[in-house]
């Protein structure tokens, strides 16, 4: 077997021209995914540009095999050093190796098979980039890569049949932009169902959002809440959840979502006390997993990105919760928790009309309240004994003397004491913490609650998107013995707006965020449980359709008597006749045409059916064949008809009477 012939410089340049765009794009996401550093990518891209330039001026680089072998051995040594000594990580080492190989292959193209090998390396690079990318912007990368890859493959397919460099117009002509776009749209349309149908044997490799920073995970859905971390979390715009209610709830009820309850405080850190559970025999606040027998006032559907300990955000008045996959556990303090191994979950909550009351029994023990806070509370409310009045005083005090800020001054000592006595500035958790502890110090059963308030109207449907900006803290206190009422001591400036509406730009931004949420929820975190859900949805859809069909059949049997069917049939027939134009006004034929039609009819009576395609002169000839004596009359009738219809000559009354006379004679002859 002989080795394939080496490519000419022109063909090598053409291959470079085709491969370089894909090579330039393929590894870019690795910068953001930690697959490689900016410096490595910069060196790689600059080298690519140089290779492309060499190809463009007609002198493509061609490194000999010997030089490539030397370079390979040297790189192997570097790889060992990088892996053993620098310990940059497997992904980074592999990425560097792929970048080196890609450059080496592109710099030493000699045969078409080597171009294919270079393509394979580029594919592996893009695979590394795609598999390590988790941000929604990866979709842009996929789209751009699809465009470039399609053009690259199409041009390589053309080059495969050239043995010499093709003219420039060849590569310029293929593929056309419209076809590329159509192919990518069709490919995306096919990809979507395939992506969702391909079997999942493992849980998702990357769950969303796994980029959660420490402050974020410490601020919400945690057993501990750090006052500083809470403000950091509130500055984030990360999507916490998306919810929709059917029927819609009044905003103030729907948009306050309770998440966790805190009863133990120590030097700026709140801690849950899960030991405080329901009393023996006490009924659970939630009937988990199934709808309660009573009809809910509203059903709230929530898509939640699971953070921290995986506590569910629930509206007040929730009495039943259904989790789409798996189950939630009710903590003794009335908090619902799901496993944290999943990226996101969907659940439904049945909400009643009952006034908002917090579930669980835990309260802040007076012993946890710092002395300074206790003294402050007595100074402020010592003359009051009614819990409601005490709270009003506290709330009024906050409104008059305190300021809301997400960047409170750095505390010296206990943050709440510092907040009350010195800074008088803080965010919602400072206000809620201080109020709860002051209430507790005055003997009112109170506790701190975290959750969210408000949200953004979503771009898609009537959903509401809740972000980290909507995180909030408030107080639950038993003021009158009717249960834990919701008290929000934060000044109005610090309470997130109930429902934000936005400009077009903001809406577009919201759309982007919804796409991000969908990407996180439906693509990155898609797993076998979701597949089961899809199958279930399809099954339920089919069942519902079948039920409707059966119902319609029954309805038809019950409703359609023979007379109804007859009326329907008659209506349909009438409609058909109208469509066919049966009742359209009849336009009378011109006299010459009438004579010609009569002539055709006479001929068909004599000779049998005459096709409509037989032209007038042929009719005259056929007539003469059949009845030689009628030759002259037939010819005259045809002549008048032809002159009238095709020549625009209107026959005179004398001509018409002559035609009539001739027709009469013809009838006799026939």
């Amino acid at each position, binding site marked *: 077997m002989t080795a394939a012939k080496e490519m000419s410089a022109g063909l090598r340049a053409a291959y470079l021209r085709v491969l370089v765009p894909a090579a330039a794009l393929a590894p870019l996401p690795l910068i953001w995914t930690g697959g490689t550093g900016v410096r490595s990518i910069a060196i790689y891209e600059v080298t690519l540009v140089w290779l492309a330039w060499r190809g463009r001026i007609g002198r493509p680089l061609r490194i000999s095999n010997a030089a490539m072998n030397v370079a390979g051995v040297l790189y192997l040594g570097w790889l060992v050093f990088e892996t053993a000594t620098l310990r940059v990580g497997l992904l980074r080492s592999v990425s560097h190796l792929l970048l080196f190989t890609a450059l080496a292959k592109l710099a030493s193209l000699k045969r078409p098979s080597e171009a294919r090998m270079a393509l394979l390396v580029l594919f592996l690079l893009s695979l590394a980039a795609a*598999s390590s990318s988790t941000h929604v912007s990866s979709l842009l990368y996929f789209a751009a890569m699809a465009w470039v890859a399609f053009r690259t493959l*199409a041009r390589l397919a053309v080059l*495969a049949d050239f043995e010499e460099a093709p003219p420039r117009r*060849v590569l310029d*002509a293929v593929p056309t932009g419209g076809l590329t776009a159509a192919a990518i749209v069709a490919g995306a349309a096919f*990809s979507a169902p395939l992506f969702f149908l391909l079997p999942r044997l*493992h849980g998702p*490799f990357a769950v969303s959002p796994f980029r959660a920073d420490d402050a974020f995970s410490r601020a919400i859905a945690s057993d501990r809440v750090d006052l500083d971390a809470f403000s950091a979390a509130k500055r984030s715009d990360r999507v916490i959840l998306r919810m929709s209610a059917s029927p819609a709830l009044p905003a103030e009820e729907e948009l306050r979502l309770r998440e966790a309850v805190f009863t133990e405080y120590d030097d700026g850190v709140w801690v849950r006390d899960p030991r405080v559970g329901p009393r023996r025999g006490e009924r659970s606040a939630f009937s988990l997993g199934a709808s309660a027998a009573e009809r809910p006032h509203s059903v709230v559907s929530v898509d939640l990105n699971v953070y921290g300990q995986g506590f569910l955000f629930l509206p007040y008045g929730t009495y039943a919760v259904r989790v789409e996959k798996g189950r939630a556990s009710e903590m003794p303090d009335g908090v619902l928790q799901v496993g944290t191994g999943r990226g996101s979950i969907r659940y439904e909550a049945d909400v009643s009309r009952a006034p908002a009351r917090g579930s669980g029994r835990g309260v802040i023990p007076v012993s946890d309240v710092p002395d300074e806070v206790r003294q402050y509370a007595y100074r402020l409310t010592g003359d009051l004994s009614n819990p409601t009045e005490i709270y009003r005083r506290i709330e009024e005090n906050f409104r008059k003397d305190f300021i809301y800020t997400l960047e409170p001054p750095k505390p010296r000592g206990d943050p709440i004491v510092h907040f009350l006595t010195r800074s008088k500035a803080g965010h919602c958790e400072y206000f809620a913490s201080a109020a709860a502890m002051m209430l507790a110090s005055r003997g009112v059963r109170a506790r701190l609650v975290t959750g969210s308030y408000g949200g953004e109207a979503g771009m898609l449907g009537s959903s509401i998107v809740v972000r980290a900006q909507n995180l909030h803290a408030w107080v639950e206190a038993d003021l009158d013995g009717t249960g834990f009422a919701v008290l929000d001591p934060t000044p109005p400036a610090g309470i997130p707006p109930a429902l934000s509406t936005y400009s077009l730009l903001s809406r577009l931004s919201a759309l982007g965020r919804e796409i991000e949420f969908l990407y996180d929820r439906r693509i990155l975190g898609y797993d076998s449980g979701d597949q089961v859900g899809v199958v279930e949805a399809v099954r339920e859809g089919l069942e519902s359709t079948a039920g409707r069909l059966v119902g319609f059949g029954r309805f038809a049997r019950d409703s359609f008597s023979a007379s109804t069917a007859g009326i329907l049939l008659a209506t349909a027939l009438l409609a058909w006749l109208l469509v066919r134009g049966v009742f359209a006004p009849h336009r009378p034929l011109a006299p010459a045409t009438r004579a010609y039609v009569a002539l055709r009819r006479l001929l068909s009576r004599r000779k049998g059916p005459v096709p409509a395609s037989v032209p007038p002169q042929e009719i005259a000839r056929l007539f003469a064949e059949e009845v030689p004596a009628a030759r002259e009359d037939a010819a005259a009738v045809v002549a008048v008809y032809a002159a009238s219809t095709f020549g625009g000559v209107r026959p005179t009354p004398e001509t018409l009477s002559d035609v009539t006379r001739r027709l009469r004679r013809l009838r006799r002859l026939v």
Partner: protein
Amino acid sequence: MNRLIPDWEIRITNFGLGYILLCLVVAIAATNTGNNGLYLVLAAMLAAMVVSGVLSRRNVRGVLCELETVGEVVATRPAWLRLRFENRLRTGTAQSLFFLHESLPGPLWIDPLRPGEKRELVVEGRFPRRGVFRDADAGLLSRFPIGLFRKYRKASLSREIVVYPLPEVTPIPPVPPEDSRGGRPHPRQRGGGPDIRTLREFTPGDDLRDLHWKQSARMRRWIVREREAERDRVVFLVIDNALPSPVDSAALARFESAVARCAGQALLLLSRGAEVGFLARGVKVSAQSGRAQRLRILEALARLEPVSPADAPAFPSLRKNDLCWMVS
């Protein structure tokens, strides 16, 4: 209605096989890691196969290709081929098309054809061997869009292509005049020979040297001698196309060589004004002279096929004393 046996074919390319292998690799990686990024790539790769198949089929199927030759075609000599293409698709440009034919040095690139566009190209090609081509061994090839498949659509011929053998110049023995007569009946044609055929009245264009003065004087009109045509020499070139083994390449080469020599001798004789005929088993071209006879003999030689001795028909009969030259 779709044809049961389409005139286009599909073959997977090596690149396509590699692509399928890569799909398997990505599928294994995706399944084992649960990485939805890999699942996205896998879904896109599978979708690309489907889209590629549909686009490829449509791309080639929509293009009509017709081929015909311009003028005489002689084996191994440059010949003109007229190619007609028509994109019958209402939408979609047909692209990445190559025209293939054995007479061309390589695949011929066809610039993209817009919807409904008709294009005619005249290209130079060389047919490697003589023969008659009723079925176009030519067509359109495309790896469009991404090279997973090779789609081929056969071209149609507007008429059969007859490739004449390349005449091989060989010396021919002189033909004695007495042999050339061969006892054939005299053609009795007008001409410039020495024998007088008849006398007749002068008509414009007659050679004045043929005026018969005495008779003209007697008749008081211009009378000319009408001469008989000069008698041509008549030769039948004979090839025995019965080969002991049709698969014997050496014998076939000898046969082809004989055909080429026969063509060369026929052309040489005809150029000298001889009447030449051709004879093979089951084939006879009557002896005549002139340009038309040249084409008749070349065409007979182009169509001549070797036959096995068992099935070989006898040589057509000749008149007594017809001169035959066996070419071998």
